[in-house]
């Protein structure tokens, strides 16, 4: 009888990898884990409003910093072991080649889906990337903001936008988009996924154990398989 449910709020890009990790965790006798996948900005907001999350797995440091400042992070539990790469994807049936960021400024590309550039981590990263190479003002009018990286992926899959920026791990999951090009690590922003225990977590003991498990060799292997860059 497993009534103890560890509630994990996790960034949308971690969806598939985490589900697999949790499945092996439970098979090995661990407590049941339930997930709330969404953009980290929304999750952080929900935690601030009192959502009973045990763990917060964020896609950027900014959201975690915000929670820490609000005293909602259990000290000593924060660590980042994952990174990711940004890629530009286009619909699977797109014909015109897109080779570099400059191509996004041409009239061939009318609409670009990005996570909300003011809050959703992948969108924040994307905007930093464009600003870094000086084309944000040219690209901004074409932006269709989305709720999360998965929503960006869906928009590109539907063909209603010409391109989108997602994490490489998301592009690999989808069969309906193709990667036009990768954002080189040098020109891209530093992506980091901090994990932490939420202060006052209702199921603290079980949550700590799962958090430990996420850094285990088994879990790291799963993350790597999905395309995440595993540090440490």
């Amino acid at each position, binding site marked *: 009888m497993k009534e103890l449910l560890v509630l994990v709020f996790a960034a949308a890009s971690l969806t598939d990898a985490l589900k697999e990790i949790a499945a092996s965790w439970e098979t090995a006798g661990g407590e049941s884990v339930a997930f709330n996948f969404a953009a980290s*900005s*929304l999750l952080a*907001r929900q935690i601030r409003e009192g959502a009973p999350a045990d763990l917060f797995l964020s896609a950027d440091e900014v959201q975690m910093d915000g929670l820490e400042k609000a005293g909602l992070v259990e000290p000593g539990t924060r660590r980042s072991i994952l990174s990711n790469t940004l890629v530009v994807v286009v619909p699977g049936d797109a014909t015109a080649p897109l080779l570099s960021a400059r191509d996004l400024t041409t009239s061939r590309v*009318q*609409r670009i889906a990005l996570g*909300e550039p*003011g*809050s959703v981590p992948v969108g924040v990263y994307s905007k930093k990337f464009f600003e870094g190479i000086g084309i944000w003002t040219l690209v901004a009018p074409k*932006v*269709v*903001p*989305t709720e999360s990286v998965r929503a960006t992926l869906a928009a590109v899959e*539907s*063909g*209603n*936008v010409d391109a989108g920026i997602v994490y490489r791990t998301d592009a690999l999951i989808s069969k309906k988009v193709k990667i036009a090009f990768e954002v080189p690590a040098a020109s891209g922003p530093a992506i980091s996924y901090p994990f932490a225990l939420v202060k006052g977590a209702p199921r603290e003991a079980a949550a700590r154990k799962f958090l430990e498990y996420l850094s285990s060799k088994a879990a790291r292997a799963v993350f790597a398989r999905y395309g995440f860059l595993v540090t440490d």
Partner: protein
Amino acid sequence: MSAFAVDLPVVWFTLRVAALAVLLLAPFGLALALLLARRRFPGKALLETLVSLPLVLPPVATGLLLLKFLGRRGPGGRAAQALFGMDVVFTWKAVVVAMMVMSLPLLVRTARVAFEEVNPRLEAVARTLGASEARVLSTVTLPLASRGIAAGLLLAFARALGEFGATILVAGNIPGRTTTIATAIYNDVQTGLDGRAYGLLAVSAALAFGAIFLSEVWLKRRTNA
């Protein structure tokens, strides 16, 4: 809480698209209401149900249907590309369409009642006096149903102003292009700009209150027959 503020451009945009939606909806919606009020025909119950669907389906479900239809790969989207060379989804046009679809049931139901309340005897006598169907419509039916029709249009407008679920799917939430009062509130809440959200909430509440109140007043004071 962030500073209380009212995003006037968003309010203005919402008012404009909602007004356009009602304007475009009116001829079709009123014709439909007249048809349902006056005629019996096979499949009438089916038509009534279809018209009422947006009222009962979750707005996002309707939004999903619209997205499929109006998207670049859907029949509506492709037609728009072929005929006008333009995209519909993620533009203000999609906002207008979403508002039209969501407001249709309210307009049709209210106007239908208004038409049903027009004494058919008056229309019959008008015909015996030599009036064509068009003249009967414009000089007897519409004037006598006018208050109910106005109430219906106002309700449709109020509904359009508040439309969210279908709009956000089919038009997204693009600042300056498709952001309405409702989607702006959603966004402001998500990004922690509560002050702005409350500002828009106040405007939204005032508009809704005004529209519904006026509509109720009109519905009560119908022309004496």
